[in-house]
């Protein structure tokens, strides 16, 4: 078995000695800089670069053979580039939804874990892909307890190849996660999450890609941090329940921090207990319940928004009967401070089943309109890479068999003919037009694979316009959950 570390150690290990002429050129440039410094004319980095650009021309002329080598390499890169550019995610103008083949989207792999029933806090596996290639999933833990039913998600599953392969890690300094990771800055390794340390509810922070975590306590009286949106490593808006029970009726209170969780301020959420929220810039939108003032009456499901970074909230106008999905924190997303999207259901009448719907806002969440082209698809999750490029993932129409009675496959068994397929809707013009991509079922799957993960994408995360990763809809007690991606494989 070849040792790849050794192969890399030996790679291009010939002595690279600079030509005497190159050394002399560099020496003279430095000497000139020293002289200018002594004369009180400090040289700027900008002028250093300009100087070097000028010099590089003569340097390349001296080394014609190297230029030829670079040209060969450039041609090779161009060939690879053409291959990937040849499969664009095209948007169809003129309204409606056009169906595209899955030439770009594909089954990336299977996330392996001990996913178990986790009726608490996070659903089984909450995914975050902060940058291209890197994705995190916080995983449901089979241990449910203590007696109040507090949920655990103590594993961190990491992919470094856009969801193709996954490695389970045991992070240090955290007992469990209660929200997905939020990694708003840098290279994807500076992350924040809600969680538990021992029996204490905390805000967790990691600067090493989730390997180790430090924690800060939540405000007095707060129970669990159930949703979190951060526009930087210091500014976050969090939803906190009033106790550590998993099922807290209605939702939680809203708090904001400007110092990474050292201190929190209670927001005025217009009496609404929030279940989920999303922020972009100063805009935040959320959904929750408004307790009824009349005894015995059910609370109303309402949508609220904030235009001051989550400090104060106002009730929004949504289509009649619409409510956001409360099972996924990715059911609402703001592409920028103006444009937001949400997935949910519309109850047309008490006697009719709810229908799936997508809503959009172009005024920072104050008013929402249905997106007719995307109605009746079982959409579940939204991710926006830019203020114009967004994706909504789901699984076509609901499949009553797999959603209520999950099945798993034996090794090598061919998957049955699907009654529904994973589906992704994409827009490149801030929701003006949408394209639809369906992903075919694979012919063979690992034993223990979640059946519904092959028929629906439960979560989607798109760190860039060229990379999206979807996580199959989670089943109970499955060992493998399908992951999908539109990222080109191999060399990039």
């Amino acid at each position, binding site marked *: *078995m*070849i040792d*790849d*570390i050794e*192969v*890399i150690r*030996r*790679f*291009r290990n010939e002595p*690279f*000695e*600079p030509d005497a002429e*190159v*050394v002399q*050129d*560099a*020496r003279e440039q*430095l*000497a000139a*800089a*020293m002289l200018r*410094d*002594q004369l009180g004319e*400090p040289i*700027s*980095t900008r002028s*250093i670069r300009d*100087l*070097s*650009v000028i010099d*590089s021309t003569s*340097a390349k002329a001296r*080394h014609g053979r*190297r*230029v*030829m*080598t*670079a040209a*060969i*390499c*450039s041609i*090779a*890169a161009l*060939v*690879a580039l053409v291959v990937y550019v040849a499969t664009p995610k095209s948007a169809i103008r003129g309204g409606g939804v056009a169906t595209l083949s899955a030439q770009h989207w594909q089954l990336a792999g299977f996330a392996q874990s001990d996913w178990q029933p986790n009726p608490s806090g996070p659903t089984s596996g909450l995914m975050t892909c902060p940058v291209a290639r*890197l994705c995190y999933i916080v995983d449901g833990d089979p241990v449910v307890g203590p007696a109040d039913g507090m949920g655990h998600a103590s594993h961190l599953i*990491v992919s*470094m*190849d856009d969801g*193709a*392969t996954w490695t389970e890690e045991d992070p240090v300094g955290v007992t469990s996660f209660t929200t997905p990771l939020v990694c708003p800055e840098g*290279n994807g*390794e500076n992350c924040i999450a809600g969680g538990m340390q021992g029996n204490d509810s905390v805000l967790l922070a990691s*600067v*090493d*890609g989730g*390997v180790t975590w430090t924690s800060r306590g939540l405000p007095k009286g707060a129970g669990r941090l159930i949703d979190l949106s951060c526009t930087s490593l210091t500014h976050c808006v969090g939803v906190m329940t009033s106790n550590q029970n998993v099922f807290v009726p209605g939702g939680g209170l809203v708090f904001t921090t400007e110092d990474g969780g050292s201190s929190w301020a209670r927001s005025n959420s217009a009496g609404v207990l929030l279940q989920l929220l999303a922020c972009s810039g100063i805009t935040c939108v959320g959904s929750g319940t408004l307790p009824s003032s009349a005894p015995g009456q059910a609370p109303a499901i309402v949508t609220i928004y904030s235009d001051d970074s989550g400090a104060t909230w106002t009730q929004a106008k949504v289509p009649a009967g619409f409510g956001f999905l409360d099972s996924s924190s990715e059911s609402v997303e703001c592409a920028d401070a103006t444009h937001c999207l949400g997935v949910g259901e519309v109850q047309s009448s008490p006697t009719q089943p709810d229908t799936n719907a997508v809503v959009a806002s172009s005024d920072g969440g104050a008013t929402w309109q249905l997106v007719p082209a995307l109605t009746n698809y079982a959409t579940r999750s939204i991710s926006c890479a830019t203020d114009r490029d967004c994706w909504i993932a789901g699984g076509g129409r609901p499949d009553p068999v797999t959603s209520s009675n999950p099945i798993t496959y034996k090794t090598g068994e061919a998957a049955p003919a699907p009654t529904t397929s994973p589906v992704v809707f994409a827009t490149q013009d801030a929701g003006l037009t949408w394209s639809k991509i369906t992903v075919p079922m694979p012919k063979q799957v690992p034993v223990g694979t979640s059946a519904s993960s092959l028929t629906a994408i439960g979560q989607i995360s798109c760190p860039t316009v060229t990379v999206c990763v979807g996580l199959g809809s989670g089943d109970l007690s499955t060992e493998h959950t399908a992951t999908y991606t539109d990222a080109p494989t*191999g*060399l*990039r």
Partner: protein
Amino acid sequence: MATAKPVDEEVTDEEIVGQSVADPGAFGAIFERHFSTVYGYLARRVGSGMADDLASQTFMVAFDRRSTFHPHEGGALPWLYRIATNLLSNHRRTEQRLLEGIARFGAESQHNGSFGSEMAEEQAIVNIELQRAAVLLAALEAHHRDVLLLHLWAGLSYDEIALALDIPSGTVRSRLSRARQALRSRGADLPEPSLHPQTTKEIP
């Protein structure tokens, strides 16, 4: 500084850089000590042509910012590697092209030349190893590649890499760990070099 000054090996880098704040000419000793080393690292990363410029820039930037140098155990090299790595970050595409070129064409793209027929078999093995390494390196995230190559090629310790990249030592370990995981994952998909290869195959 038309000619190289002799370098007094007993004087530490820290002393030289410190002295150069008041006496700019003293910085020349840092150049004489470390230029070839930094150049060699850069040349392995992005090729000799680009290294000519980047190595020179590294020392120009270092000289310009010498007053911000904090003495660390291990001398000026981690600091110089930090500057070089920052400069490299502006040339990721060049590095990627170089790796992809080698991955596709093996040694031909590196040397732009042919080898004698009597060396064909040995060269074929070298080619496959070159291509394999290029594929593996090209697939790494840039910040994972930086950590791995500072360790393997520059020979820096974890603490020196932490200094060089201005990141916690724990992050160095996690990035190295993830780089190795990525290599294992990618490497499992690649054909291994054979002792008797028939041809030099292109690795997808």
